């Protein structure tokens, strides 16, 4: 199967290992990702946060326009990009007035044929747990994690149309399928405050500390996430002495598949996960 891929700005910078591990796991599973030609930034939260309504729709819509030409589903790794692309798609589909305006700003005709999907959904729905389990060479036995979705993959549910907004399960099932010990906890969709990380780090330290405290309490030694903004924020804003590593779930799949490139991903983390992996026999 093949898909158009929208990496988003993070996968080329602060979330480098997310982009790399997504491409590597997809390739290993025989799923083709072709990066969208000349894609642009989706405007993230800033375009709509300043109430620039048409701009906040037109920036992601230009990427939908490029994806339309390919005729394939549009897969994105970043939760924030997913939210903006999916939200623009929802408006273009349901609001004819806004659609007219965005079409003329971007210069295209919206067909509604592109489905915007997060990486998690493609692996779960198209590839499936059985096939993923069949690829495991090195089960993640002994690795205790909690799954962390953050906000934008699951909220607001009428836009995202993915998993359960209060108790999502897809990432848990994927990681259990490769042998990880996923601990239940109640904070998978609590906000980590990434959007305020630079301007009000005081607030964000308390949000992140609360999340990591609850994760330790749940018996986890690490978090797994599917959002590059969350991952950076969670690794950067822990104030306690003992730091909890935060993995991209695609890195953990790659580890379980025995991919040799994993060693290049660990060195990108702000919190080195290798001591933990070593302690459970998953790294040299």
């Amino acid at each position: 199967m093949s898909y158009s891929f929208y990496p988003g700005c993070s996968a080329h910078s602060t979330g480098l290992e997310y982009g790399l591990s997504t491409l590597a796991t997809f390739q290993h599973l025989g799923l083709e990702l072709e990066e969208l030609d000349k894609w642009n930034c989706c405007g993230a939260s800033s375009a709509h946060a300043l109430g620039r309504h048409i701009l906040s729709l037109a920036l992601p819509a230009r990427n939908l326009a490029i994806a339309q030409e390919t005729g394939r589903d549009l897969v994105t790794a970043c939760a924030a990009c997913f939210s903006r692309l999916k939200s623009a798609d929802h408006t273009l589909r349901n609001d004819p007035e806004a659609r007219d305006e965005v079409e003329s700003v971007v210069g295209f005709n919206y067909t509604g044929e592109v489905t915007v999907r997060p990486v998690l959904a493609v692996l779960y729905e198209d590839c499936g747990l059985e096939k993923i389990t069949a690829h495991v060479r090195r089960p993640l036995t002994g690795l205790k994690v909690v799954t962390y979705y953050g906000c934008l993959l699951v909220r607001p549910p009428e836009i995202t149309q993915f998993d359960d907004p209060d108790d999502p399960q897809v990432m848990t099932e994927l990681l259990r399928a490769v042998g990880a010990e996923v601990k239940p906890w109640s904070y998978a969709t609590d906000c980590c405050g990434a959007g305020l990380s630079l301007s009000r780090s005081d607030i964000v330290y308390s949000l992140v500390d609360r999340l990591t405290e609850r994760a330790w309490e749940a018996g986890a030694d690490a978090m797994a996430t599917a959002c590059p903004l969350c991952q950076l924020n969670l690794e950067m804003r822990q104030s306690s002495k003992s730091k909890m590593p935060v993995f991209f779930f695609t890195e953990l799949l790659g580890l379980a598949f025995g991919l040799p490139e994993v060693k290049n991903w660990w060195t990108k983390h702000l919190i080195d996960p290798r001591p933990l992996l070593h302690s459970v026999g998953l790294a040299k």
Partner: protein
Amino acid sequence: MINNMISEANHLSGQEIGLCYHCHKCAAGCPVVGAMEYGPDRLLRMVALDQRDAVLRSRDIWLCAGCYTCATRCPNDIDISAVMDALRQLAVTEGYPAGERDALLFHKLFLGVVQRLGRSHEAAMLGLFKILSRVPIYRDIDSGVALIRRGKVPILPEKSGAAPEVQQIFRRSK
């Protein structure tokens, strides 16, 4: 003519603020309510009471993390996140000083970089934020250096080929 705040905020956000019956679910679920002056449900009431000045000056509209918890939990389906977007828009267009100056600065710098390059460029954005914000300049230097050393904040921007069309989109979107 629109002559009061609630109809203006309803119009800009596409919401019906009058439906709020103050169950406080939004405030209970808000991750940043502890740092706010009023909290989301009181802000909605203040909009309904036409307390324009207090609302548009408040730090609360800039502290909103955009997490959509309130919008997801509201029993009357008010997208409070969209109301917050509308209130920030009003505050900016009417020239109110942002209640969280650096939050506004961050959004402006981010969009400025995207407008010029077509994509984000962390090195430029973070550099400008360090210089222009009131956040002490030494803060986060260690993380910044760590990110640069890991090759995660390229000094030169990517050539995406998207910039000319993105600039056109900025010009055409009011």
